[in-house]
């Protein structure tokens, strides 16, 4: 919308100088007004009442098609050329323009309404020394405004003061960048001093100089001059419009940018315009048609020249030439006349109809109950209405993992304590019971501090813990102590954990519910409630997690003075460090671990060790030395950790489920059957991604090999890729075959295509982010692409948002295939925008992904319905529509061409002008729309049953240049029949009463009736799905044709509009003639039967997949909806690793004093080191609290509030 405003500006004559620096003074309106900065009113609407007509028309005529028809209309106004009356073009054009205008107007009215609503919001403004409530639109640059908790930020503000300590303000930026976690802004101390003293604020006379308005969310530069001092301003001191103030009672701010100058507005409206491949094809075709039109007109013009010389010159006695016109000029004029007559090859209604069909299909998506998610009341949404048919051609899907495949919820599912497994339910016969939502939960009401959202189903564990089992207690004590989670307890008993990785949160929450509540921590102590008793542990050391260690430990001293080391980590790592006495337990635990791994759970092994006081003192001393050492500090610490973390005693293992969304494995299986390749691009670490790959069935045990590319050099990456490729396909050429071609308008666009290579067996590929960076370099990208495309499954982990987009672009560029990107977070935005189609998962993280997406829905599993049903139908419908539409218009036009040879190339039309006017808009519009809105070859159940039905779309089989040529040949044949049969039947005959019937008007009527009948029968042949509406449209259109024709040829019409309706009586006089009907019947037979025969033979000899399925459908009953199979337990030897989804622990932070009570906020910028720009963000996502299940719709505010507490 920013672009609109900027485009508007010059148009309204508001010549604005380019602002180089912004300069204003606080509380000084007259001074600030002299600069004419934009106030805070916004206009996203395009038109006002007065500008609507001219501007809208201007916009519309910028479209090529409309401009073409306008110029045609102008041509028709030249009498020498005009072969058709002006209304033949004007009526359809006006119709088209007004439909679009009405749509634009209603859109704009909505924008006006929302503008008005936003502009009229109230805010407290400091005017003349007192706070007044005023409308947003009246706020000016330099005003001081007061914001309260949960208010939207009115404009871009410089923060002056706030209610919180250190002049901090918390804001949620969900509307700006989609991040729901809170960000911290801090005012300058010098302004913060003013607090909420209105007097001081009113006296504030600071002068601000800063950068001009721009759209960079993460940068701000400026200075504040106050009392002779200059202070620098940066992004931390600025509140941006679109944010919401949270957890801050009040704050004051100085308006820097208002309305259209705000960063929010400067950022909006820059959506890239996506077009479908059919669109591109259509453009090329329309261009070809233009060429063809010119060719036909040239032929006819030459014909006219020859005719004029040979025949016309001797006919001048009856028809004198106009003054100054000779054969050559006449030929030139006839060229233009034929341009007008034959203009129907580029049908004006094509674009309108295409838009209507797409809109209809978008509505179907919005209306689909099977893509509606009742849990948070989210229906699917087609946010872009112009891409539907592309959904039927997807070849590659790029999916985010977290929040898309998974729910981004970690749950503590199972555990093994001292060799006993908990967490599974068995019925009386010893069969494993499927745990569903209805399964009874363990009651934690005895524990006042329990998290109500936590659920567990195995009662025996709770009993064991409460029964005083020592191992179980140690197990949960470990979970409550060994972590880097930070607690927040705003109200007594209301605990919130701030965990860096959701798994940790899940474990600590589990401990909390089983009675070992982690309550608070200081750098030296951890306070816990153990079965209701407050216990304070002295925290001696945190041996933090990292990628190499794959474990973390804490050393604590209990109140009794006992020293213990608690350690949790990846099984392989811990097992190496266990005391030999645990060997038996180790075996049992291993069995459990394998089971958990087979279920796709993330496992951790827990162990402890009691420490000796003396040893500990010694170790602590050495630790201190090491950590203060100047050289190789890391190595020395590492050694110390190794030394103390040994001879551990095994406690048990935990299994955390990274909950997949419902139906993800089935969806992936279905999509794979439809020959769609799915690549997972995730910011997660390799183990996590791999784990999910297994649990959602992308990676399978039966795969021949799974390659991991994790090299750190370009050479290494190349080697690994080549090795993988040679393993998969040893005989393939070293150099990729790149097919170069040209495409696009005027064949200007160069395309390169890498052929798909066949590989036996299934392989998987996992690429690490740093390797991917090398792989995306110019010289390696083809290698990467080849190898990746040979694999069944590709998982890229640790990728940055930018890399996500690059991968998508790579595939787009060299595969010339249609791509779809699906994601939910701000880090997926780049990928969603880069892909042909972006899908946003709504109702999870922020709104950013959804806002930049083309389609959105709440669950990944709806993707299969979107593609296999809606996409396929849309594609099928669009192709059928295009094929039929071109056929109908070409046939219509070619008849004129043939007639030219009989009428001296004089640009005489075959049909009545009114028929030409109404043919596309009235007589044939509805039937073809009916077909393209309702048609389905088989219904949705069968579409799911046979995902192979999707393949023709990927191969562009239904409509391509070839199909277009075929369509043209067909029309050529039909037009020959449609012209020459009536000609032969009529040219030498008379009515049954001897009167004329070979006259022009009767022939025109006959020809147009034949045409219309044939076109309708052809449509009937093309229609697979005859609803009542189709019947109504087809028969109704035919009936309307006869009714309208009889009306237009009636006495009354002639007597009122004599010159417009000269065909009086023609219908009555010819339609009662048997030979007219005999001719119509014959033409129809000759046009249609060959098509029927041809199609029948094709079905018999080479049935397409559609024919086969349709054949099956006829024979069999509707398939039952696929049963929701419980995921089979895989027998797996694979061990899932310690899957922390964070890179480095909080350890430093936890032991530092920085996060302490009065200043917990200082740490925030460290914890949430997220840059505002989605693209710049290259870190894995950070997580908030863990919710087992989101029963009720959770509003972003609620989430944010939870995060902030």
């Amino acid at each position: 919308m920013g672009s609109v405003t900027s485009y508007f500006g010059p148009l309204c004559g508001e010549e604005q100088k380019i602002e180089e620096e912004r300069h204003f003074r606080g509380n000084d309106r007259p001074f600030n007004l002299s600069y004419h900065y934009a106030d805070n009113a916004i206009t996203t609407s395009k038109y006002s009442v007065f500008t609507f007509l001219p501007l809208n028309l201007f916009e519309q005529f910028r479209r090529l098609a409309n401009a073409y028809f306008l110029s045609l209309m102008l041509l028709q106004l030249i009498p020498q050329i005009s072969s058709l009356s002006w209304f033949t073009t004007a009526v359809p054009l006006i119709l088209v323009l007004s439909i679009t205008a009405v749509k634009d107007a209603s859109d704009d009215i909505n924008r006006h309404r929302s503008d008005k609503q936003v502009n009229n919001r109230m805010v407290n403004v400091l005017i003349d020394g007192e706070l007044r409530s005023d409308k947003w639109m009246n706020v000016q640059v330099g005003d001081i405004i007061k914001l309260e908790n949960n208010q939207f930020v009115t404009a871009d503000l410089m923060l002056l003061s706030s209610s919180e300590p250190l002049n901090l303000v918390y804001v949620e930026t969900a509307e700006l960048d989609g991040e729901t976690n809170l960000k911290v802004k801090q005012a300058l101390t010098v302004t913060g001093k003013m607090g909420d003293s209105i007097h001081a604020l009113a006296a504030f006379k600071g002068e601000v100089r800063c950068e001009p308005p721009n759209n960079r969310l993460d940068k701000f530069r400026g200075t504040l001059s106050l009392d002779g001092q200059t202070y620098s301003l940066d992004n931390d001191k600025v509140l941006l419009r679109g944010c919401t103030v949270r957890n801050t009672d009040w704050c004051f701010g100085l308006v820097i940018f208002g309305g259209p100058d705000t960063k929010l507005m400067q950022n909006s409206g820059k959506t890239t315009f996506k077009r479908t491949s059919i669109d591109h094809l259509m453009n090329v075709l329309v261009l070809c048609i233009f060429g063809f039109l010119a060719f036909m007109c040239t032929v006819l013009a030459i014909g006219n020249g020859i005719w004029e010389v040979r025949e016309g010159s001797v006919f001048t006695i009856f028809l004198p030439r106009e003054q100054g016109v000779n054969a050559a000029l006449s030929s030139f004029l006839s060229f233009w006349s034929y341009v007008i007559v034959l203009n129907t090859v580029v049908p004006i209604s094509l674009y309108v109809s295409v838009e209507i069909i797409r809109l209809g299909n978008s509505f179907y998506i919005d209306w689909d109950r099977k893509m509606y998610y009742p849990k948070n009341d989210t229906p699917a949404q087609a946010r872009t209405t112009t891409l539907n048919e592309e959904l039927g051609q997807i070849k590659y899907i790029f999916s985010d993992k977290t929040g898309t495949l998974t729910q981004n919820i970690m749950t503590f599912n199972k555990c093994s304590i001292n060799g006993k497994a908990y967490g599974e339910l068995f019925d009386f016969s010893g069969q494993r019971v499927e745990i569903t939502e209805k399964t009874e939960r363990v009651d934690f009401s005895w524990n006042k501090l329990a998290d109500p959202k936590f659920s567990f189903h195995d009662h025996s564990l709770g009993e064991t813990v409460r029964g005083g089992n020592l191992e179980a207690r140690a197990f949960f004590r470990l979970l409550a102590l060994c972590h880097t989670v930070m607690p927040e307890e705003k109200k007594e008993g209301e605990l919130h954990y701030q965990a860096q990785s959701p798994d940790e949160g899940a474990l600590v929450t589990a401990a909390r519910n089983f009675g070992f509540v982690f309550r608070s921590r200081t750098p030296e102590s951890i306070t816990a409630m153990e079965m209701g008793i407050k216990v304070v542990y002295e925290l001696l050391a945190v041996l933090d997690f990292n990628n190499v260690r794959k474990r973390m430990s804490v050393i604590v001293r209990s109140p009794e003075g006992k020293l213990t080391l608690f350690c949790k980590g990846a099984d392989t790592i811990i097992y190496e460090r266990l005391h030999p006495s645990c060997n038996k337990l180790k075996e049992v635990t291993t069995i459990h671990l394998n089971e958990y791994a087979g279920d796709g759970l993330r496992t951790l092994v827990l162990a402890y060790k009691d420490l000796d006081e003396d040893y500990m003192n010694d170790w602590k001393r050495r630790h201190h030395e090491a950590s203060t050492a100047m050289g190789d500090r890391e190595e020395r610490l590492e050694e110390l950790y190794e030394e103390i973390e040994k001879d551990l005693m095994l406690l048990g293992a935990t299994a955390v489920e990274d909950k997949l969304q419902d139906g993800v494995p089935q969806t992936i299986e279905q999509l794979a059957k439809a020959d769609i390749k799915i690549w997972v691009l995730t910011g997660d670490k390799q183990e996590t991604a791999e784990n999910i790959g297994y649990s959602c069935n992308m990676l399978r045990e039966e795969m021949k090999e799974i390659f991991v590319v994790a090299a750190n050099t370009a050479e290494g990456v190349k080697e690994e890729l080549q090795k993988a490729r040679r393993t998969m396909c040893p005989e393939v050429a070293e150099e990729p075959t790149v097919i170069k071609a040209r495409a696009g308008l005027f064949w200007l666009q160069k395309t390169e295509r890498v052929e798909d290579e066949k590989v036996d067996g299934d392989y998987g590929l996992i690429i690490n982010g740093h390797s991917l960076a090398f792989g995306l370099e110019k010289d390696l990208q083809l290698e990467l692409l080849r190898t990746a495309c040979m694999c069944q499954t590709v998982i890229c982990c640790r990728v940055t948002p930018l890399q996500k987009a690059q991968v998508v672009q790579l595939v787009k560029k060299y595969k010339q295939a249609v791509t779809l990107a699906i994601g939910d977070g701000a880090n997926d935005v780049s990928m969603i925008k880069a892909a042909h189609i972006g899908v946003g998962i709504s109702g999870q993280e922020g709104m950013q992904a959804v806002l930049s997406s083309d389609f959105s829905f709440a669950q990944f599993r709806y993707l299969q319905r979107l593609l296999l049903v809606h996409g396929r139908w849309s594609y099928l419908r669009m192709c059928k529509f295009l094929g039929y539409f071109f056929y109908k218009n070409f046939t219509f036009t070619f008849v004129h061409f043939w007639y030219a040879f009989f009428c001296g190339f004089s640009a005489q039309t075959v049909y009545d002008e009114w028929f030409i006017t109404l043919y596309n808009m009235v007589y044939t519009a509805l039937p073809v729309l009916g077909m393209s809105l309702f048609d389905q070859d088989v219904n949705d159940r069968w579409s799911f049953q046979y995902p192979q039905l999707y393949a023709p779309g990927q191969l562009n089989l239904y409509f391509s240049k070839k199909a277009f040529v075929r369509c043209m040949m067909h029309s050529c044949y039909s037009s020959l029949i449609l012209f020459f049969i009536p000609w032969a039947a009529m040219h030498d005959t008379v009515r049954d009463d001897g009167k004329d019937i070979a006259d022009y008007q009767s022939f025109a009527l006959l020809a147009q009736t034949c045409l219309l009948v044939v076109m309708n029968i052809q449509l009937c042949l093309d229609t697979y799905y005859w609803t009542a509406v189709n019947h109504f449209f087809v028969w109704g259109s035919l009936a309307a044709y006869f009714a309208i024709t009889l009306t237009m040829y009636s006495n009354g019409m002639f007597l009122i509009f004599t010159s417009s309706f000269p065909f009086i009586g023609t219908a009555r006089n010819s339609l009662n003639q048997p030979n007219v009907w005999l001719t119509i019947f014959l033409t129809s037979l000759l046009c249609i039967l060959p098509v029927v025969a041809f199609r029948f033979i094709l079905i018999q000899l080479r049935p397409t997949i559609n024919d086969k399925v349709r054949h099956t459908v006829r024979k069999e009953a509707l398939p039952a909806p696929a049963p929701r199979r419980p995921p089979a337990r895989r027998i797996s030897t694979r061990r899932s690793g310690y899957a922390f989804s964070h890179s480095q622990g909080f350890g430093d932070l936890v032991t530092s004093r920085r996060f302490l009570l009065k200043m917990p906020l200082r740490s925030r910028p460290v914890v949430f080191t997220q840059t505002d720009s989605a693209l710049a963000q290259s870190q894995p996502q950070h997580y908030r609290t863990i919710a087992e299940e989101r029963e009720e719709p959770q509003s972003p505010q609620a989430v944010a509030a939870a995060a902030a507490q």
Partner: protein
Amino acid sequence: MGKVKGRSGPLAQRPDNSAFKQQRLPAWSPMLTANTVLPFFYLVALLCMFLGVWLLLTVQGTQELKLDYTEAGTCKGCFDMRKNASKAAEPCECRLDFEIKKAFKVIFLNEQQILTFGSTQVASSTQKKRGDVFFYYGLQNFHQNLRRYMDSRDDGQMVGRKNKLMNPSTYCIPFNTDQAGRPIAPCGAVANSIFNDSFTLHYRGQVVPLLRTGIAWYTDKNIKYRNPSNGNMTLAQVFNGTAPPPYWHKPVYQLDPLSPNNNGFINDDLIVWMREAAFPNFKKLYGVLRRAATPFTKGLPAGNYSLNVSYNFPVQYFRGRKEVVLTTLTWFGGQNHFLPVAYLVTSCLILLAAVVLTVVWFKFGKTGRKMQD
């Protein structure tokens, strides 16, 4: 595209469960199967065969005679004379003798119809008159279908609008006013180029009587063409101040000296001419045999005839030909061999296609093997 509904509650945004919105409308989905296609082809082939045979038999019962008189007989002289534009106004009579070997038989449906035709009242168009003998003149290579030619007329004038009579449409240019500036009625190239040969047919010295009215469409005669009326004024008075088209020898209100109701814009010959032909070769109705008296009560008897032509219309300019056509009709129009032959050929083709389809189906499709893969 979010749906705004008045509903509230947890499922406020749930889409309606209607068959239309869920794309579950009940529908009929036909398919091209052997069970439908093959019988259909055979049936259509039979139907076409039947139609073809029937039409052919019907056409066999008709007779047609075409006489090209452009340069035939004594008309050669007139043809040469018409080459000379300066003698355009001079009358030229010529004669053409021919023989009808087989009588043009009239098939009577019932006697009453003849009586109706016997009168000069043109009530005939409402009646079925089959088997009459029709007299046409034909022109070849005359392009009545040129765009500018067809446009060169004023329907408003011909429907009797007074203002148009005196102020013809610009479409008529250059035939809208004469050199003196008087409006031309009827204006335009079409009317100007009216075919102005006239014929009398003689049989054994006796004039073959022709009905010269009732040859135009009822709608044309009664609605599309009206004379401008002005109280009790005669036609001549009404057309006072207008000029006839330049090629005309007599004014529009004197076209038919015999019948006052056949003059002005409602003259049958004018109306027939004004209905422009779709193709450059065409024939137009000149008259219908009047079967009131012997020997013509049963049509045209066999024998020698002579055709007297008042040869006015020049065709040599545009390399045209003129002809006279005598024909009888069938229930589906004039003698038309195309339709029966086309139906017969089509029927054969369809039959052939049906056989091929059957073979293909039998060999490949019947087992349904290809459908199983």
